[in-house]
């Protein structure tokens, strides 16, 4: 069974090869962005992006953009 997480307020099915937060960011093509990640209401420090993603995790990602 694949994992299903809550990603930015929506249900999201994680593909099997994505096991960590870092892999999720790369899968979402956000790997080279300046961003902040929250996992289960806790901000993740950048050196903790190898944290595993578990079923039903709540993940929020906010990336910074230039425009306005």
């Amino acid at each position, binding site marked *: 069974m694949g994992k299903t997480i809550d*990603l*930015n*307020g*929506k249900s999201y099915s994680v593909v099997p090869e994505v096991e960590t937060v870092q892999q999720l960011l790369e899968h979402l093509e956000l790997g080279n*962005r*300046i961003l*902040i990640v*929250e996992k289960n*209401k806790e*901000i993740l420090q950048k050196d903790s992006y190898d944290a595993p993603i578990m079923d039903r995790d709540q993940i*929020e*990602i*906010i*990336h*910074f*953009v*230039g*425009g*306005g």
Partner: protein
Amino acid sequence: MSKYSRQELFTPIGADGQLRIRGAKVFVLGAGALGSSGAEMLVRAGVGELTIVDRDILEWSNLHRQQLYAEQDVVEQLPKAAAAERRLRQINSDVKIRGVVADVTPENVLELFEGHDMVLDGTDNIETRLLANDACLQLNIPFFMGACVGSYGLTFPIGVAEEQPCLHCLLEVLPPQSLTCDTVGVISPIVVTTAARQVAQLLKYVTGAELDPRLESTDLWTDERASMEVKNMKKSSCPSCSAQPSHPFLSASEVVRTAVLCGRDTVQLTWPKNRQVELAPFADSIRETVSNLLHNPYLVSCEYNDHRLVLFRDGRMLIHGTKDITEARKIAAGLLG
């Protein structure tokens, strides 16, 4: 019936809140999409004074989302700050409105912000946001950050609560390139949504309501949203907001500065204050060399060697059609020596 009666009827504002709004002096940083939308809301809300600054002139590609402008403004090649000032004065004559055609730089940012109670973010790049972050921290006024591209926008109010992080704490490093409206496009609903959130935060602050400094984002197309409690991201060693800050983004240089405007195929050259070029003599001097010469009180624009050049009164030249700083300097040198 008062212009603001429906706003005063809204209990959290009331007559007392309206008086506080009337007393607010707001600086709007940028007169593009967010700046247009935010400034219009603030002027209609009846703030006391509003200064809006922008370095650019209007283009056709601005009109789908920059709500203060109309086709005639583009035809006249008006600077955004001048067109914004004109339109905002039509909207509400109670408000003291000033449009300033200028690039906000380390040299002038403190002088520009001084005398205002807060800054609303309408800029289009992260570097200027970090500059504003430093300047607002130094002046001890809040900065209502907002940014958007595509259908995605984010907001973060800075300087509104004790012990909160600043933008520099959150970003740590300046990204070499970030997404812009010129590279990935933008739709107007996210502009209005982002500006609405910034202005709501500003009004809450002004009227003394409790304001939680959360980092928030919305994507109107994918219907995703996030809202983060970021208090513990405050860094005690942050160069911008620690006990002994150095405000690194306020450091100015005395040379002609160059900047490639991201995604615009345009280079901007900025002359220091003591070496500025006068518009009228410059226009006369190039009349025979260039084509499509246009001279108004704000700028000189022309075509030269297949490039469009615009020289502003504040000492900036935009050279369109190149991303190459060396080539841009050469083109400028071709006309200015």
